[in-house]
């Protein structure tokens, strides 16, 4: 048995054991969805870092730098860092109420439809969340399949099925189990990418040589392909061009900042300061990890000037590890990539199942508040995680797309649909339900149109869709009537009225 498989088996044994322990601690629906709103700073930092580090970042970013040049730093790295930079402001607002919401659609229900029992806007938002996170989970399965099949030589499809087995264990324990697994994964990812970067520096002879090669190389992406224009990889806009890079940057920055899984994460910490501080620390701690990924992407071009024909740039890091890294360090780095896939996919599947069971099914059925219903919902959540995991694996089998690009599309769609709902809704009392509906439809329709047909005047797609979505929200909220006080009071006042608190408990369907 080779060293890669031994490290893999040990790692997944630990992850499965941790998840089983975590699953036993789950007592209520609140524990399952948001860890009982009592998460501390360290666990919050660990789970947030691991969520940022998906296969899109660990494999997609070095692959994009390798194939597109340093412009990928603007589009992806700076985009995601700006999203993280803005998150403390959103986290503070979301966690400000004494009794926070438990899911993103529940927050939408309270903010835009507090008087309704069966909220249509909540069901609509949950359905969008379900589709978006299913795509995210599917991307993680693909990343894992690529890595495991590269190492073991097993067929890609079999590797996707292996992923599902691991995923089931890690998701069954709910939020705290996911958070604990994520924290362990974050440490492993850090060790793995540092090992990768150190080896690349040794093989290339240092940063100076890496840069010199990067700005002069003409080696094509794949063997037998078109040679690159000399120096193109070192230019500001690389092979993408200004509009495409700025659109990617804006989608990643403003789309990720309002992505529903982040909004849900901000509900879990024990207070608003913890929610804001965890994101500030994440911003700082991600710097060394992404610096390593830049070194791997740029250095990879010197070590392996072209990839084998028929593979995408996402294979660059796994191929570099297998062919050029010390086997022990390589095993760590590859396990880190799989850890990234597992940690992101499990939180995405948790969101998918929560949307489906808690925000759609429970809302349509309009069940009474009771501890019994709470327990039943928790059981259903576990069942649906399994079902959605199977679907994600089936979807990933035989399908290939570029990992980081796939994330950008989903973030772009989320940002175009939800930016006005979240940002305008958290910072303006006037934002109301008609404005929310209009902004979602305008954002979604324009994002779809600009992505397929191209944005007018060569403008970045995201700027057009999200910008016009916000403008339409501002117009509609100013010509329609103000929302009821219970819709916004908890987010603007530290001591909300009894009526607002009662509304929050009613929407949460708290057992009484």
């Amino acid at each position, binding site marked *: 048995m080779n060293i890669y498989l031994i490290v893999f088996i040990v790692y997944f044994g630990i992850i499965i054991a941790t998840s089983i322990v975590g699953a036993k601690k789950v007592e209520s629906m609140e524990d399952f969805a948001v860890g009982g709103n009592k998460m501390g700073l360290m666990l919050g930092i660990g789970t947030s870092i691991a969520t940022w580090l998906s296969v899109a970042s660990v494999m997609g970013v070095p692959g994009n730098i390798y194939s597109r040049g340093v412009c990928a730093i603007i589009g992806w790295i700076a985009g995601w860092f700006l999203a993280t930079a803005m998150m403390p402001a959103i986290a503070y607002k979301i966690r400000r109420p*004494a009794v926070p919401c438990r899911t993103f659609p529940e927050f939408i229900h309270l903010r835009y439809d507090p008087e309704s029992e069966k909220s249509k806007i909540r069901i609509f938002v949950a359905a969008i969340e379900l589709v978006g996170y299913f795509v995210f989970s599917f991307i993680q399965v693909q990343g894992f399949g690529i890595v495991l099949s590269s190492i073991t030589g097993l067929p890609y499809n079999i590797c996707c099925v292996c992923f599902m087995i691991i995923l089931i264990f890690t998701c069954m324990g709910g939020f705290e189990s996911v958070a604990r697994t994520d924290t362990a994964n974050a440490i492993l990812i850090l060790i793995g990418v540092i090992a990768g970067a150190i080896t690349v520096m040794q093989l290339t002879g240092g940063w100076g040589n890496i840069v010199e090669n990067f700005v002069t190389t003409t080696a094509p992406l794949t063997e037998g392909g078109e040679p690159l224009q000399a120096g193109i990889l070192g230019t500001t806009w690389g092979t993408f061009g200004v509009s495409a890079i700025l659109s990617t940057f804006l989608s990643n920055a403003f789309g990720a900042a309002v992505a529903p899984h982040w909004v849900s994460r901000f509900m879990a910490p024990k207070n608003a300061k913890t929610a804001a501080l965890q994101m500030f620390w994440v*911003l700082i701690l991600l710097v060394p990890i992404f610096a390593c990924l830049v070194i791997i992407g740029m250095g990879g071009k010197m070590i392996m000037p072209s990839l084998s024909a028929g593979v995408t740039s996402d294979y660059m890091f796994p191929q570099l590890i297998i062919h050029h890294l010390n086997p022990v360090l390589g095993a760590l780095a590859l396990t880190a990539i799989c850890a990234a896939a597992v940690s992101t996919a499990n939180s995405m599947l948790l969101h998918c199942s929560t949307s489906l069971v808690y925000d759609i099914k429970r809302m349509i059925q309009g069940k009474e508040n009771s501890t019994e219903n709470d327990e039943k919902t928790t059981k259903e959540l576990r069942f649906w995680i399994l079902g959605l995991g199977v679907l994600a694996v089936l979807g990933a089998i035989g399908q290939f797309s570029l990992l980081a690009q796939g994330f950008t599309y989903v973030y772009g769609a989320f940002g175009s649909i939800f930016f006005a709902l979240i940002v305008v809704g958290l910072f303006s009392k006037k934002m109301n339900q008609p404005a929310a509906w209009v902004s979602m439809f305008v954002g979604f329709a324009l994002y779809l149109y600009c992505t397929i047909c191209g944005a007018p005047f060569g403008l970045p797609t995201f700027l057009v869709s999200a910008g016009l979505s916000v403008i339409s929200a501002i117009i509609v909220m100013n010509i329609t009537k103000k929302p009821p006080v219970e819709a916004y009071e908890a987010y603007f006042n530290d001591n909300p009225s009894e009526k607002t608190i009662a509304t929050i408990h009613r929407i949460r369907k708290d057992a009484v």
Partner: protein
Amino acid sequence: MSIIPFVFWAATLVIGLIIYIAVASTIEKSGLDRLGATGNLFTCEKKTDAK
């Protein structure tokens, strides 16, 4: 090699620091334990006095 991508990246860190300080200052001004006010911008847990 263009340094603009690296400048973009560094700028996001500065923006992050400014936004965090603005948020933490608001929480500290409120003085509410419930929100996590501790008297220090970079801590979220109050030190407990030794008995």
